[in-house]
């Protein structure tokens, strides 16, 4: 059983659903009963796909740190250690579902087929939004903590209205779900609460997907809450689950259930994936200031990628060939990315930004744009 007790005292809550041990054996937690069959029934293709997403992203993540050190990025937010949680979540969704991420959902972005360089355009300060949301049914990364969560609920409210009167069959075929991602730190923001109230009130098809990685920059989870966050759900009248977020099949099974529940019109669900931020908060952060290397190395032992690899090997007889191929593929992705990112030009100029402030005309913006043009010409001339 994959219980972790950390130096700061955290431990998977007893209600947490976990199926795999840290070394990839099937060893369900007490609370996993209802999910063991579903989790272990997940076919090897999906587990392999999760592994691929995790491995590819981890390599790109590493590249994010490198590129930032080399001055190519203004910032990078590692997803290191949280890959299983995200892979479980994103593979539970249909393409038509919408994801409302924080700034760390790199595995989910990959799961949506968003090209790495679009994600990186954000981190190299070229744009505020790396991709066109409707191309991938994924909202761009939001930086203000929790702010995207009411958006997800509003979106869910809208689709609930559009789907009113649909048959169960049609819901299953065409029904959409919104997934609102946030972290343990963000859970304290008032917007999370209002979002949950609205979601419950309007029976919106929203899954609140919390990655509790036990840290909000330097602030340990204990400062935000003394009890796990899945317990909040009951207070709003919907169901909440705690899952071992470093266990890909447990997370996938619980997310499958949550998404299905929402899709059928059952209203919101909360899933708290207990994971760990193995890296720094961002490249600007220095975790040695606030946590011990013992804690870090302890969590390294529950590395979700190792666990997934072990499971594939043990249960599905995956061999080196597969893992080598993924490693090579990941390496190639990193090479491709570097090529696209290193010394890449601006994707948009400030002049073009003038035209994006409003959809309609705005005389002041227009006048400033004209002045800006003139100014730029003068500058070029001088």
């Amino acid at each position: 059983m994959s219980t972790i007790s950390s130096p700061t005292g955290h431990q998977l809550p007893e209600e947490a659903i976990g199926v795999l041990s840290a070394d990839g054996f099937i060893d369900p937690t007490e609370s996993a009963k209802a999910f063991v069959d579903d989790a272990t029934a997940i076919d090897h293709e999906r587990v392999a796909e999760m592994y691929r997403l995790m491995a590819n992203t981890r390599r790109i993540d590493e590249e994010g740190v490198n590129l930032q050190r080399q001055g190519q990025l203004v910032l990078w937010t590692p997803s290191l250690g949280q890959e299983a949680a995200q892979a479980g979540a994103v593979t539970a969704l249909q393409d038509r579902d919408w994801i409302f991420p924080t700034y760390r959902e790199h595995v989910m972005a990959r799961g949506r087929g968003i090209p790495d360089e679009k994600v990186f355009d954000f981190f190299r300060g070229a744009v505020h939004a790396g991709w066109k949301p409707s191309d991938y049914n994924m909202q761009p990364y939001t930086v203000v903590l929790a702010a995207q969560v009411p958006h997800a609920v509003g979106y869910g409210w809208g689709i609930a209205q559009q789907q009113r009167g649909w048959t169960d069959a049609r819901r299953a075929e065409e029904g959409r779900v919104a997934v609102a991602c946030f972290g343990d730190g963000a859970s304290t923001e008032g917007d999370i609460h209002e979002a949950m109230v609205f979601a419950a009130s309007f029976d919106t098809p929203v899954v609140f997907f919390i990655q509790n990685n036990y840290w909000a920059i330097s602030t340990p989870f204990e400062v935000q809450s003394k009890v796990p966050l899945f317990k909040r759900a009951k207070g709003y009248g919907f169901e909440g689950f705690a899952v071992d977020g470093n266990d890909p099949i447990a997370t996938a099974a619980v997310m499958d259930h949550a998404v299905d529940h929402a899709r059928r019109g059952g209203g919101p669900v909360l899933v708290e994936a207990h994971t760990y931020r193995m890296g720094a908060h961002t490249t600007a952060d220095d975790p040695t200031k606030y946590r011990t290397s013992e804690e870090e190395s302890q969590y390294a032992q529950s590395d979700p990628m190792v666990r997934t690899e072990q499971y594939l090997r043990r249960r599905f007889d995956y061999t080196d060939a597969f893992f080598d191929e993924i490693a090579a593929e990941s390496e190639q992705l990193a090479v491709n990315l570097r090529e696209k990112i290193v010394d890449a030009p601006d994707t948009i100029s400030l002049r073009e930004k003038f035209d994006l402030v409003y959809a309609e005309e705005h005389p002041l913006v227009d006048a400033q744009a004209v002045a800006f043009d003139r100014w730029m010409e003068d500058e070029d001339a001088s």
Partner: protein
Amino acid sequence: MTTVFDEVATGTKKLTVGQAVNRALGDALATDERVLLQGEDIGALGGVYRVTEGLAARFGSDRVVDAPLGESGIVGTSIGLAQAGFVPVAEIQFDGFVYPAFDQIVSQLAKMHSRFQGSQQFPVTIRLPYGGGIGSVEHHSESPEAYFAHTAGLKVVTYSNAHDAYWVTRAAIDSADPVLLLEPKKHYFVRGEVDFDVPTDNPFATVEARPGTDGTLLAWGPQVSTALAAAEAGVEDGYDLQVLDIRGLSPLDMTTIADAVKTTGRAVIIHESSTFAGFGAEISAGLMEQAFLSLEAPVQRVGGYHMPYPPSRLEQDYLPSVDRILDAVDETFTY
């Protein structure tokens, strides 16, 4: 108070401002099925001022929705509704209760179009009854326009009469951009002629409410009537004062304003909130930049004092008055 209308309005009618808003909302709901109203108490009750009366009954509680009591949630979910293809019209019950939604308005709604590089529109309208002089308790009489007009990405508009109430509201809902629609609540019960023929001018433009040659009074929303009264009273003092009714604060129709003041050479700006770093400062600074050589005297500001909006028994001493406005006009004639 409000009559419930069944068809989209045509012709000309005498309505109160509240009725005109009710009609505008009804017509928007009737003509565009994407329009969805949400807010506290806007359903069965019809809003605390009855401005949405009858709309829930006519269009269903799915389209005219009593929201849970969270302003940030109201604006935040409106953003999501827009992403799902709706045209949300959110009511915040009173001026003083808009601040819990400040982040969602200023940092999210206003920035989304620019952030998303124009790939998605956010045609959210936020209706905000505002202004004082209504004898109410704290937080029910504020004029927060300066906080919002500074915010790029947001349109901020208002009006002073029933006709404009109808057309500014329609235009706000039609706008592809987010609009903060400031409703002068003390005028909800003031009656006026509404012409339902589609107006030829831009409903957010600044218009002349009264011609005059000696000086220009600049006001918006609830203070246009005070400005008009001052201009009227000024006749006795020998002043022929022009009054401009500023409907769009952002975009601000600075061309019309500057042209007018260039002609009269004198200007007094009137608003209810504290003058310090208030929206009047922008107009004064704009006139400095665009009409400097035509100014016979410094532009004056008449507004609230630098204090929180006072208890209602004291509000008449706080609000701009005919006398204070004429005093400021006198001041411009000492130059």
